[in-house]
């Protein structure tokens, strides 16, 4: 791709961007949200047409007018949100839209699609029948089905947009190995990720975009976390991660016998100190989010005995938890954290409307004042308090979620995957906010599947496996190896029991 330009009404998304990918090369494409990564890839995938520049394939200019063209040229796009039909089986998904016909009535040649799908599934190391319905598969497996589809199209270039954002650590590792395997088979990969550890692991080259332009390139030997971040933000970020602290008041928050409806037979108990960030690591499905929901009263068949300071709290609903200053920033920002069709103001005030009302009638001026305060103090990039949340970027949406809780002084804040899909700059700000909140005497519980985040942001780490805490690691013992061992259910010497 050479000198690609694309403008949208009001914004220049890409301005003279070039990208080269060699055969069998893995190129990581990095950049903050809005840097133009997705636009560039959508042009390559035939979704958008460039306003300027040209695309060259094997040295000859080509025109990719639509997605079908892209397929023909061997370009496959694996989106962050999976495009699978989970009511159909594996083979039907792989052959969706190009089913081989049998006979004159447009019947699907079922035998052929299953027979043709099987080798691809095997090549990816998936041990499932091609007749399995997709909703029976894990997210990672569904993603592999998408990759199988890409391979079955004889793709020469696979674009992966944040492929690991919803995968467990193990699944992530397998995917990274797979990418390296594809490379050996001569398939090129463009890998978009905010997780610089992964980029470091697999990329032959890193291309960084900033504000719709090429910001720089790093060869295999030059790749380092700091250099990528430096290129992405165009300046040095000093102290990207936050300093660790020792809890001011240990055991300020005591959670006993927390039980979720997912693992009804198992309970979780732990303590967290005032001023502490307690990380929760584990594989997806270990029950971390479920425990969080149980603590804040969102699990009707679960629950927990929660003591804050010396006070034993009665929590039977989210309302109760909020009344005690215990807030949850859920994993699914758009589905659970925000009412995206409402304005920033309405979202920020939603849990605390009582404060803005007299005689049941809401004072919009008071609401606006609080919203403006949060917009200013969290530096939320928005045209104003009345802008709809759905028009904001992921990082700014997350700040709105934080703002809605910060405006009512949290005592305990549970953050579930707080920086998923958020660009580096906003990530650093969110870490800083978490630290500040802890320093102001809050208790922070941070659930994260991003290993770097767990390692660098938490003061202590609780590791969960299949519904229980397998151990708690003090800061010096927090290593990737220790966490992984606990996450798969092993016991290790360095780990402390959850409650002593």
């Amino acid at each position, binding site marked *: 791709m050479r000198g690609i330009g694309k403008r949208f009404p009001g914004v220049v998304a890409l301005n003279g961007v070039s990208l080269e990918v060699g055969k069998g090369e893995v190129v990581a494409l990095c950049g903050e949200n809005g840097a133009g990564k997705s636009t560039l890839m959508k042009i390559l995938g035939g979704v958008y047409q460039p306003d300027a520049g040209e695309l060259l394939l094997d040295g000859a200019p080509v025109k990719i007018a639509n997605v079908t063209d892209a397929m023909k040229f061997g370009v496959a796009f694996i989106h962050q949100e999976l495009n699978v039909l989970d009511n159909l089986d594996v083979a039907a998904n792989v052959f969706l839209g190009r089913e081989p016909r049998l006979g004159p009535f447009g019947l699907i040649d079922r035998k052929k699609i299953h027979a043709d799908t099987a080798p691809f599934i095997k090549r990816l190391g998936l041990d499932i029948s091609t007749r399995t319905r997709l909703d029976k598969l894990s997210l990672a497996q569904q993603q592999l089905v998408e990759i199988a589809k890409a391979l079955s199209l004889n793709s020469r270039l696979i674009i992966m947009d944040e492929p690991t954002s919803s995968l467990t650590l193990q699944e992530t590792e397998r995917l990274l190995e797979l990418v390296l395997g594809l490379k050996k088979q001569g398939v090129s990969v463009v890998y978009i990720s905010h997780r610089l550890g992964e980029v470091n692991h697999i990329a032959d080259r890193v291309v960084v975009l900033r504000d719709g332009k090429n910001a720089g390139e790093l060869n295999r030997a030059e790749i380092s976390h700091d250099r990528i971040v430096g290129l992405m933000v165009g300046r040095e970020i000093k102290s990207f991660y936050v300093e660790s602290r020792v809890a001011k008041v240990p055991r300020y928050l005591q959670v006993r016998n927390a039980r979720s409806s997912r693992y009804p037979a198992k309970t979780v108990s732990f303590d967290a100190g005032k001023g502490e960030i307690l990380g929760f690591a584990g594989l997806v499905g270990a029950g971390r989010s479920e425990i969080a929901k149980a603590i804040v009263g969102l699990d009707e068949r679960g629950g927990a005995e929660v003591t804050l300071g010396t006070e034993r709290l009665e929590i039977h609903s*989210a309302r109760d938890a909020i009344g005690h200053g215990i807030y949850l920033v859920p994993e699914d920002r758009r*589905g659970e954290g925000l009412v995206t*069709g*409402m304005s920033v103001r309405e979202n920020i005030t939603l849990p605390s409307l009582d404060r803005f009302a007299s005689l049941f009638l*809401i004072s919009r001026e008071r609401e606006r004042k609080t919203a403006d305060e949060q917009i200013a103090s969290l530096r939320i990039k928005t045209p104003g308090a009345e802008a709809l949340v759905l028009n904001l970027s992921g990082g700014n949406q997350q700040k709105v979620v934080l703002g809605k809780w910060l405006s009512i002084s949290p005592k305990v804040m549970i953050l579930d995957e707080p920086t998923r899909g958020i660009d580096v700059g906003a990530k650093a700000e969110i870490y800083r906010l978490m630290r500040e909140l802890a320093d102001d005497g809050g208790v922070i519980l941070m659930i994260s599947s991003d290993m770097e985040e767990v390692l660098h942001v938490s003061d202590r780490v609780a590791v969960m496996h299949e519904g229980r805490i397998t151990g708690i690691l003090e800061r010096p013992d927090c290593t990737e190896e220790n966490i992984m061992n606990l996450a798969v259910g092993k016991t290790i010497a360095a780990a402390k029991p959850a409650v002593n």
Partner: protein
Amino acid sequence: MKKEIGISVLLLVLCVVTAIMNPKFISPVNLVNTANLIGLYGVFSLGLGLVIITGGIDLSVGSLCALTGVLLAMALTEWHWPWPLAALVVIAVSMVLGLAHGWLVARMNMQPFIVTLCGLLLYRGIARFIANDGTKGFSGAEGIEPLRHFASGKVLGVPAPFAILVVLSVVMWFVLHRSIYGRYLLAVGRNEQAARFSGINTRFIIASAYVVAGLFTGISGIMIAFYTNSVSPSNHGNFYELYGIAAAVLGGCSLRGGEGSIIGIVIGTALLLVLQNLVNLLGIPSSLNFAVMGAVVIFGVLADQLFQGRGRKR
């Protein structure tokens, strides 16, 4: 706000065109009559609109009108209840049935369409059964004049139902657009999960919308019974729910929930009834009544969609 302006303009244009083509449209008799009908239909449309805003639907309105009508007539003429008791019981029955809908939807996670469709069938059947399929009237009932006046009299020269609609609309405007409860309704309609995570008792909010719909259907049920003055249980109130849904949709409510306004619902109702009036006055065969209504709803919503779509692209 844009939506309301659009449909207000449409309403105004319709009125002007009708008035020019047939001056009878602006005769006092016709105006009073149309206003009366707007009041009758508007009240239950308000409640139905609220349910639609939570992302639900209420198909049982018409049957519930038949049931309340039959109950009211029988209570007054056959059981000789005093009118305040009869009216209260009828409204209470209506609210309890609304509560049942709300419970099934919010607590038992049933789909609103199914719950209220069964309501539609059930209440029609019950109404016909208790009336023994006979038409019930109010002749012979004594001392019901205050109620009759309340339901079909005039207030300051304006038909009572219209006056009641105005009052309820003002109240509901504050409730939906200015109160905490209203904000919760809109939030629950948009994203029930997020509302729940913000500490809102979403089940209560959803169920309450059905209860309010029951209340309003009960009130308009009484007025409609006195308006028709006789209640034939097999066809009294037929299709009323569809009028209400059409009015709410014309007025900018989205069947996906989370969107809608009181002014829109009221203007939507007015638009539908002016249309009916127009069909009569312009000599269009009354058999085409529903066809005209359907065409206008399609046109209105489509125009809105195109208008909005263009706004977004720009």
